[in-house]
């Protein structure tokens, strides 16, 4: 067990953590601003990857694929918000769960109808397919770049929420939607904007992850549930909580998969590694039922 190996695993965990953060921040913002629980968040992750794979196969331009996939996703998100989500803001969580579950079923089948059942492989951009020497570790350039991009996006979200007028409105309507509306802000448009924003964030995570995994129908489900675990641990509605939760989950996930099979033998170690983040969640819940940074409702 060399230091270099641990360092490499730490980089992997950091990268997974930042991807989970991009997803979890969307779950937490949608709940914080609109009291919405959106299970279809994982579908945005999946759809962006499919859009990207499709456009890049047609045009062979990574830039066009990025812009096209995210623009398509934003338009789709605005339409979904207007038609299906907006009537649900005032309804109870059960109906939000069911309607967004319906969306998952539709999107999972739609991508299979359009792009087939076989996994779609997304090529790595040529410039980024090499390795960078970090000390004595050869680390894939692509993973390094997406880590950097995720950090930049994370900082931009923080700036948007904490320092701009729009961010102020988002935070205010999280506290009291009715008062913000009474003060003359258009909370409907704000809701649509936030919904499109979180869809694009999930889309960015999906596109950046696509070359590392196979793009398949249902790929969003697993990511959705991981990001729910992040939000449960970090506390619903808290952006700092989403970051801390994402990094905790990612480190437990990556190091659990590496070390538990070594320590306990492959069978029970593998089983425990599969369950590790949920055990982490259970322990957090015993300690703080509403998450580390969460407030009881």
């Amino acid at each position, binding site marked *: 067990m060399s230091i270099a190996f641990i360092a490499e695993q730490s980089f992997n965990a950091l990268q997974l953590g930042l991807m989970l953060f991009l997803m979890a921040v969307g779950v937490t913002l949608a*709940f914080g601003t609109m009291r919405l*629980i959106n299970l279809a968040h994982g579908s945005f992750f999946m759809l962006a990857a499919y859009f990207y794979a499709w456009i890049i196969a047609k045009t062979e331009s990574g830039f066009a694929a990025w812009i096209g996939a995210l623009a398509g996703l934003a338009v789709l998100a605005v339409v979904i918000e207007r038609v*299906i989500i907006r*009537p*649900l803001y005032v*309804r109870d*969580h*059960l*109906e939000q*769960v*069911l*309607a967004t*579950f*319906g*969306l*998952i*079923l*539709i999107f*999972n*089948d*739609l991508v*299979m*109808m359009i792009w087939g059942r076989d996994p779609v492989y997304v090529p790595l951009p040529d410039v980024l397919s090499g390795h960078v020497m970090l000390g004595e570790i050869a680390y894939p350039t692509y993973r390094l770049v997406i880590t950097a991009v995720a950090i930049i996006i994370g900082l931009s979200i923080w700036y948007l929420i904490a320092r701009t007028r729009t961010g102020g409105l988002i935070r205010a309507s999280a506290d009291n939607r009715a008062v913000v509306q009474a003060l003359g802000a258009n909370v409907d448009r704000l809701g649509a904007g936030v919904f499109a924003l979180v869809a694009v964030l999930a889309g960015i995570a999906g596109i950046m992850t696509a070359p590392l995994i196979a793009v398949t129908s249902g790929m969003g*489900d697993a990511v959705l*549930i991981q990001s*729910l*675990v992040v*939000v*449960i641990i970090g506390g*619903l509605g808290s952006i700092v909580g989403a970051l801390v939760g994402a990094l905790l989950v990612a480190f437990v996930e990556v190091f659990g998969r590496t070390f538990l099979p070594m320590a306990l033998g492959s*069978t029970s170690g*593998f*089983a425990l*590694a*599969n*369950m590790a983040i*949920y*055990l982490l*969640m*259970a322990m957090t*819940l*015993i300690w703080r*039922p*509403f*998450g580390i940074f*969460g407030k*009881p*409702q």
Partner: protein
Amino acid sequence: MTKLPLPIRVGIICIAAAAIAALAAFGDQTSLRFASRIAIMGLAAVAVDVVLGYAGLVSLGHAAFFGVGAYVTGALALIGHTEGLIVWPVAVGAATLAALVIGALALRTTGVYFIMITLAFAQMFYYGANAMPGLGGADGFRLPFRSTIGGMPLDDPRIFFLLCAFLLIAVLLLARRASFAAFGYTLRAARDDAIRSAASGIENYWLRLAAFTISGAIAGFAGVLSANLTLYIAPSSVLSWHLSAELLVMVILGMAGTLYGAVVGAAIFLTLVEIISHYTDFWAMYVGIAVIARVLLIRDGLLVALRRLVTT
């Protein structure tokens, strides 16, 4: 509690009785298997309704209890234990224990937290089962034998269906009895106004935990029966979170808070899936459209819509 007018309720009972009698007399293997599935999923949907309709909690994790019931039955069958009078209580007991532990943690919260936590814990069982090579891992495994009851085999689909129907009716009657006992009234009081019920000396947490645990036991029982019906168990079929969501869909397709509404919902849901899957492989998409239409357009469930038609 929402109550349906007498004619509708009598109508449902008559249709159900006629269906059971007709199936017992003339049912072939296919229809008996399908009817058994409706009874089993109806039982699981009743379990969800106990928590949803009476305690007012949205559980997105009932697949865990269903799956534990099925997996314990299957694992015991693999090592040669098939006597239902021993295996079934053990399997239901395991599901009950799982519900007690998950409930104890999840019930410290309410609302969205409760939904997400039950979902996440169920997913823990899913990934756990995926990583058990002794039980087939992600591919699942085939049960070598059906359970027997007191040495009597259940291989005749007619006997198996009648057993499922009998158990479903027994659970419905027991749950209905409990809902009119102090337990049911206090549970609804805690649902409608938690602060007042706590002030009247009701222990909301323990009450909800009791309801959640009973519900888990019922779902586990459904899992036991399901393992015996299909003789095949895989994480994706008995522990998937889609199953949990589908159970919620069944409950709201009928009517939450009536128990038998969950069975009606299960029958509607499974029939719908059966019909659509004859025409296309992408039946899930149409189920999704139906669910969204139900939430946005009908709002109260099909039985309430039926009541509106009858009473106006």
